[in-house]
């Protein structure tokens, strides 16, 4: 990038809010799992107007602009691939308004998801989406990737809570989309088009969030099974019994083994599946819901079933699931992580296919995740060798083929970003890809907004 342009940008945000030294720029070249290249510059804007001025420059001189929250993404959504300017939203992190009458919060994109949840909880309100990184991730990143989490089974994903947006277009125009009302059908749904578009159509500078009343109480149930089918059947039976848990988390055989080795919970040997179920609601209905869930689980031959309403004990029950992601690295140093979703009825088919692949490829393949949604995080753990990388790539292709065959999607909540861009064509037909590309070109004709993401170069 031209030194003169860099100077101009420094003028816009102020010297103290721009980084140009290589050691600083390097820090913004990767996310939680993906390496990219160092940007030419990192800036910390304080307003939509500043973002607008930077985008006008970018559009004129054609350099990439990459919006970034906390960099907790898993598919490289915030990672630069071709230099340019990283816009970090840590200064635009305010909760601007909590409207307790209309159950709405207006926030800046840099606000931390957990802090929003904590703040609205003080008013008895609830913002449900809870990606694994919710304690550190920013709401802008959540919206850009359409993040989910365990809660999405009952409460839906980020998309379901974004009522409106302020978005800066590559022309510098600042537009507002959506409504502050609970419903509205005026014109095209630009809000839902921007949510999940990974910063490729515009830069989000303000978000109107829908809130709901905070549930009164919660119960947590841990269930262990010999066979994966028993776990899967339990999930179907619970939902068929008109109970909608706030979370149903699953761990497969390999995940249970891995977690037991790292953090022994004293589980019996030979387990084929684990479920962690949370129900929430008012105090009265919790009891009856939890009892019914337990009954179903035991009917499906669970070898163990533990229930608690005590938050501390619940934390213990969650331990195996929460520590798992880290524990996988005890198996091998490199993780290839996928985020596939299949219709609920196809869960056993997918899990059996993964078990078979693990045997055939001879590398650890663990699957765990949000069973109620049919969303599985598949971790392929490999050594950093060409043979292992090749095997993993083969396995990923097979997993995607199986997922698509079962009517599923390549990404439930992590986005496509950089790491899945090459595979998107497996899910989407050329006509659909073409329609998306046309939309991209319409919004961003010079391809300055987060280039290289979603669509493979």
């Amino acid at each position, binding site marked *: 990038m031209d030194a003169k342009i860099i100077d101009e940008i420094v003028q816009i945000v102020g010297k103290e809010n721009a980084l140009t030294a290589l050691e600083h720029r390097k820090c913004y070249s990767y996310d939680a799992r993906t390496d990219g290249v160092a940007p030419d510059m990192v800036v910390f804007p304080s307003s939509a107007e500043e973002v607008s001025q930077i985008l006008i420059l970018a559009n004129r001189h054609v350099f990439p602009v990459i919006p970034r929250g906390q960099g907790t993404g898993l598919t490289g959504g915030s990672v630069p691939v071709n230099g340019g300017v990283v816009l970090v939203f840590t200064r635009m992190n305010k909760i601007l308004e909590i409207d*307790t009458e209309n159950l709405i919060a207006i926030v800046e994109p840099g606000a931390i998801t957990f802090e929003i949840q904590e703040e609205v909880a003080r008013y008895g309100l609830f913002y449900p989406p809870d990606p694994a990184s919710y304690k550190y991730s920013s709401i802008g990143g959540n919206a850009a990737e359409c993040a989910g989490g365990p809660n*999405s089974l009952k409460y839906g994903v980020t998309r379901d809570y974004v009522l409106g947006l302020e978005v800066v277009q590559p022309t510098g125009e600042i537009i507002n989309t959506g409504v502050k*009302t*609970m419903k509205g059908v005026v014109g095209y749904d630009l809000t839902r088009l921007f949510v999940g578009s990974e910063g490729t159509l515009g830069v989000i500078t303000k978000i109107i969030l829908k809130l709901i009343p905070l549930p009164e109480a919660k119960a947590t149930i841990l269930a262990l099974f010999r066979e994966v089918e028993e776990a899967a059947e339990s999930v179907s039976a619970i939902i068929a019994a008109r109970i909608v848990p706030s979370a149903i988390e699953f761990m497969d055989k390999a995940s249970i083994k891995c977690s037991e080795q790292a953090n022994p919970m004293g589980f019996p040997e030979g387990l084929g599946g684990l479920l962690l179920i949370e129900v929430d609601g*008012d105090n009265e209905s919790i009891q009856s819901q939890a009892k019914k869930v337990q009954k179903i689980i035991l009917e499906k031959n669970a070898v163990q079933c533990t229930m608690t309403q005590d938050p501390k004990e619940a934390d213990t029950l969650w331990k195996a699931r929460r520590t798992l992601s880290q524990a996988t690295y005890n198996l091998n140093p490199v993780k290839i992580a996928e985020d596939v979703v299949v219709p609920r009825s196809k869960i056993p088919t997918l899990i059996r296919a993964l078990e078979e692949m693990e045997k055939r490829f001879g590398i650890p393949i663990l699957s765990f995740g949000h069973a109620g949604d049919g969303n599985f995080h598949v971790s392929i753990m490999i050594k950093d060798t060409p043979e292992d990388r090749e095997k993993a790539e083969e396995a990923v292709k097979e997993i995607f083929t199986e997922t698509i065959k079962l009517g*599923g999607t390549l*990404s*439930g909540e992590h986005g496509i970003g950089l790491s899945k861009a090459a595979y998107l064509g497996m899910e989407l037909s050329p006509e659909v890809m073409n329609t998306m590309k046309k939309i991209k070109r319409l919004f961003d004709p010079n391809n300055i907004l987060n280039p290289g993401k979603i669509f493979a170069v």
Partner: protein
Amino acid sequence: MIDIKNIQEIKIIVGDEWVSAGQSVRELHSHDESFHTPVLPDVVVWPHSTEEVSNIVKWAYEKDIPITPWGVGTSLEGNPIPVRNGISIDFQEMNKVLAIRQEDFQVDVQAGVVYKELNKTLGHHGLLFPPDPGAAATIGGMIGNNASGIRTVKYGATKDYVMRLTVVLPGGDVIHAGNRARKSSSGYNLCALFTGSEGTLGIVTEATLRLVGLPVNFMAVRAVFPTVLNATNTVFQVMSSGLSPSAMELLDGKVMEVLNRDRGYSLHEQPTLLMEFNGYSETGLREEMACVEEICQENACSFLDKGIGASERSRLWDMRHLTFESIKRSHTNLLPLIMDVAVPLSRYSEIVTFAREEVKDLVAYVFGHAGDGNVHVVVMDNPEDKGRWARVEEANRKIVLKALELEGTCTGEHGVGIGKRQFLEIEHGESLALMQRIKALLDPKDLMNPGKFFV
């Protein structure tokens, strides 16, 4: 204009008996349930498959002939009126439920399925498609308008239930947007773009819909209040108490009068709230009922009727479903203009009070989905009487502008169609230009349901 040769060509695509240029058929497809001026299509076709729709669209697009999709014409803003003539594509023959996947809580349907029929079928499997606009709408029309209804307060609108769409694009290409997974963040959300686009970007021929379990237990309440303000305060307090009503409707005194007169009820002719709660256990519902009663009493409720179970719900609720019909039957020589504004909940009292004041010299009824902040004002008048109708439109305009001033929207659920085009710029500002560019991108010849959305 379509000529005899054109009609022959269409007949080759869909078969002889599925094309008609007869006067009565064209008239039937010239208007919806609104007052908007009827316009006749040149020809009506009844395709049987996505492939046929694709071939019709491809053929028409090459010949610059406008195409307007048609469900059953229950819309209220002129949405399916073929204002530039051309072809009206009627989905009556594409009315099949293709697959029910009970374990996945999903159904695949063709666009012509009527949602009430769908729910009858789903009921046998213990399933429900919640959006309920009331009229005998088709799924295709509901997706086109992103319809909602009485249950939206708990369950959301149509867009919340659309997982996957088969869409015929302008030019005839067929795409499948979305997938059957419960969540997805892969690529742009094209489903959301097509849902609510009123057929202006493409034609939906098939859909995979998300379903919910049929509720087990019901509790219903009818509460009468001395003033609208008492009623709207109650709405607000119930909604912010953590209770989750599955319906929350406000009917003003005049609506109750019409119902008494037309249906022989003896209801209190005062502002009335109808509430419904559904849930897992009867015990839970009894507790909610106690809480609701308490809130009603605090707001000077003068009469309260309540009950638990499906038959009680029907006793307390049936009148709501009869409201629009009763209003129309009571003024057979007049036509309705139906306003559909929505505001943030805290401004609901303000908009209802404003609207009642604004229409007090007209034959007007105020009711609506109070829990959503959505209010309908039905004004009955004669569009032929230019002077009077100008007054009706003035009231409509003032109420819409008031709603926008209160940070609301000019249409909560009926869509833009013809009637709301004038307000788009005021509501959207810069983003309207972006919408126009999307329209021009996907439909460069402006042949898909032309004359809607944009002035």
